[in-house]
C-alpha cells in the first residue's frame, strides 16, 4: 500500500501536508503523534471514509475511492452493533459478503476462539467489559479477511492493565496470522512494543520513521527497548509540546 503526497484540509486549516508512506505486506506499522497531528485523519483516508484533497492513496496499485472490505477497521469505541450478539457481530462481515450463513457462523466461531471469547458467543456487547468488546471488534475486523487492518487507537479507552494484556494478545494474533496492520496510537511504549516500523507524525507531516529491530516477543526489558523509546521521545518532544508529551509518555 502506498500513500503518495497526500494532503487534506478542513476549511482553511490544513491537517495533512504532503504525506508519503509505503506499507509492505505483513508489516506492522504504528503511527505515533500528539492529538491533532493528523494521524487519525490519515487513517480515515486510508480506510476510505475521507478523500484526500491532494495526492493519492493506492492499495496494490488501485486508488482508494471509498471504504472496502479489503481494509478492515477497529475503532477506539469498538463500534459493535449493540443489537447483535457477539457471534452475530463477528459473522456480519462474512455474511454481507455472501458467505452461506452456516459457514459464516463457523468462521465467526473460529475468530471468537482466536480472541478467547467462546463462552460469550451469545452475549450482547452491552454485557461485556471494555477489553472484551475490543477483542470482539478485532475478531470482527479480522473475520472479513481484510488485506490491511487499520486500528484507530484501539486500546485508547482501556485502563492500563487491560491495555497491557490487549497488546500481548494482539502480538500473539499477529504472530499467528501475519496481517498487515496500521496502528494509530499516542503511546510510545505501545508503538515500540508492537511495531516493525514507527511513523512519528508532527503537525500533519511525517517527522521521522524508526525501524524497530527488536525480536518478538518484546518486553520493556528487551535490549534496545529503552533506547528506542527515548529516541522517539526526543523527536516528539523537541518543541513546544514538551509538557504535553511528558504527560503522554506515562500512559
Amino acid at each position, binding site marked *: 500500500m502506498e500513500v503518495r503526497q497526500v494532503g487534506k484540509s478542513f476549511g482553511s486549516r490544513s491537517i495533512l501536508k504532503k504525506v508519503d508512506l509505503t506499507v509492505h505486506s505483513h508489516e506492522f506499522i504504528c503511527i505515533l503523534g500528539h492529538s491533532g497531528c493528523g494521524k487519525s485523519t490519515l487513517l480515515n483516508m486510508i480506510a476510505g471514509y475521507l478523500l484526500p484533497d491532494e495526492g493519492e492513496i493506492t492499495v496494490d496499485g488501485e486508488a482508494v475511492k471509498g471504504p472496502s472490505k479489503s481494509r478492515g477497521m477497529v475503532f477506539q469505541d469498538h463500534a459493535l452493533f449493540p443489537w447483535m450478539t457477539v457471534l452475530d457481530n463477528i459473522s456480519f462481515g462474512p455474511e*454481507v459478503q455472501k458467505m452461506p450463513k452456516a459457514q459464516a457462523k463457523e468462521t465467526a466461531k473460529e475468530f471468537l476462539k482466536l480472541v478467547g471469547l467462546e463462552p460469550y458467543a451469545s452475549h450482547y456487547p452491552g454485557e461485556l467489559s471494555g477489553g472484551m468488546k475490543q477483542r470482539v471488534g478485532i475478531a470482527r475486523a479480522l473475520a472479513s479477511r*481484510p488485506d490491511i487492518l487499520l486500528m484507530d487507537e484501539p486500546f485508547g479507552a482501556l485502563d492500563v492493565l487491560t491495555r497491557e494484556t490487549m497488546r500481548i494478545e494482539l502480538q500473539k494474533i499477529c504472530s499467528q496470522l501475519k496481517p498487515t496492520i496500521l496502528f494509530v496510537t499516542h503511546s510510545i511504549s505501545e508503538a515500540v512494543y508492537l511495531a516493525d516500523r514507527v511513523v512519528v507524525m508532527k503537525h500533519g507531516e511525517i517527522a521521522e520513521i524508526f525501524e524497530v529491530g527488536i525480536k518478538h516477543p518484546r518486553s520493556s526489558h528487551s535490549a534496545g527497548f529503552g533506547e528506542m523509546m527515548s529516541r522517539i521521545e526526543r523527536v516528539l518532544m523537541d518543541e513546544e509540546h514538551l509538557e504535553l508529551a511528558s504527560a503522554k509518555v506515562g500512559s
Partner: protein
Amino acid sequence: MNGAKWPTVKDAGSLASAETTVIGKQVRGKRPAASGTFFQKYNILPSLLFFVLWELFSRVNESAKFFNPNFLPAPTVLLSEGWELAKTGIITDSIISSTIRILLGFVIGSAVAVALGVVMSKFKAVERWFSPILNLVGPIPALALLPLFIIWFGIGEFPKVLLIAWTTFIPVLVYTLDGFKSVPSTLIRSALSLGATERQIFTRVMLPSAIPNFLVGAQVSLGLSFSALIVSEMMGAKSGLGYIIVDARNYFKITNMFVAIILIGLEYSLFSYLLKLVERRIMAWRKGGLRDAVEK
C-alpha cells in the same frame, strides 16, 4: 435474564410462606410474607385501594347526599350494571369494533410513517419537500380535522380509521426519522469496512438502530390515537366505546358512561402492555437506567 430470575422469585415466595407457617410471627418482621411478595410482583394494591375508597365514598354519599348519588355510582353497582349491559351484547360489540378501528388505524399509521421515514432519510430531495409541509400540518390537533373528514368521507369506518392513522403517523414519523439520523457514524463506517452494500447497511444497521426510537414514537402516539378513537366514535358512529358514552349521555345513563370509561382505560392499558412486551422482546440487548445503575 428475566427468565433466569423467575424461579428464584418464586422460590423465595414459597420459602417465605413455608417459614411463616412454621415460625409464625418471628419471621414476619424480617421478611416479606407470601402476600407481600405477591403485591411486590403485581403492584395492584394502589388501584385496589382506589376502588375501595371510591366504594366507601359512594356508599356514604348514598345516605349522606353530599351530591346526587346518581352522579357517582359505586364500583359494585357499576359491576352489576355492566354485567346487565354485557348481557345485551352491546359491550362485546363495542369492544370488538373499537379494537378493530384502533388496530387498523395504528398499524396503517405506523406503517406509512416508517415507509415515509425510510424514503425521507434515503433521499434528501424528498425530505426537503416533505418536512416543511409536515411542519405545517403536523401541529394541527387531529381532532380539529374530524368534522372535515366526516364531510369529506361520510360517517363510515373510513374517516375514523383515517383519523387514528393520522394521529399515529405524525409522532411515529418524527421519532423514526430522528432514529435514522442518530445512527452512530462509526456503526455505518464499520459496516462499510466489513463489505456491506448500501442496501445491507440500511436493512441491517439503520433499521435495527432506529427501532428503539420507533417504539418510543409508538408509545407516544398510542395515547393520542386512543383519544382520536373515542372522539371519532362520539361523532357519527353506531358502535364502539365512545358511542356508548354519547348514547348514555342522551339517556342520562351515568352508570353506562362509567362502564365505557373504565373499559377504555382497560383497553388502553392492555395495548400499552402489549407494546411494552414487544419492546422488551426486541430490546433485550439494551441495558441501562437506574435499575442497572445501582443494585438494591
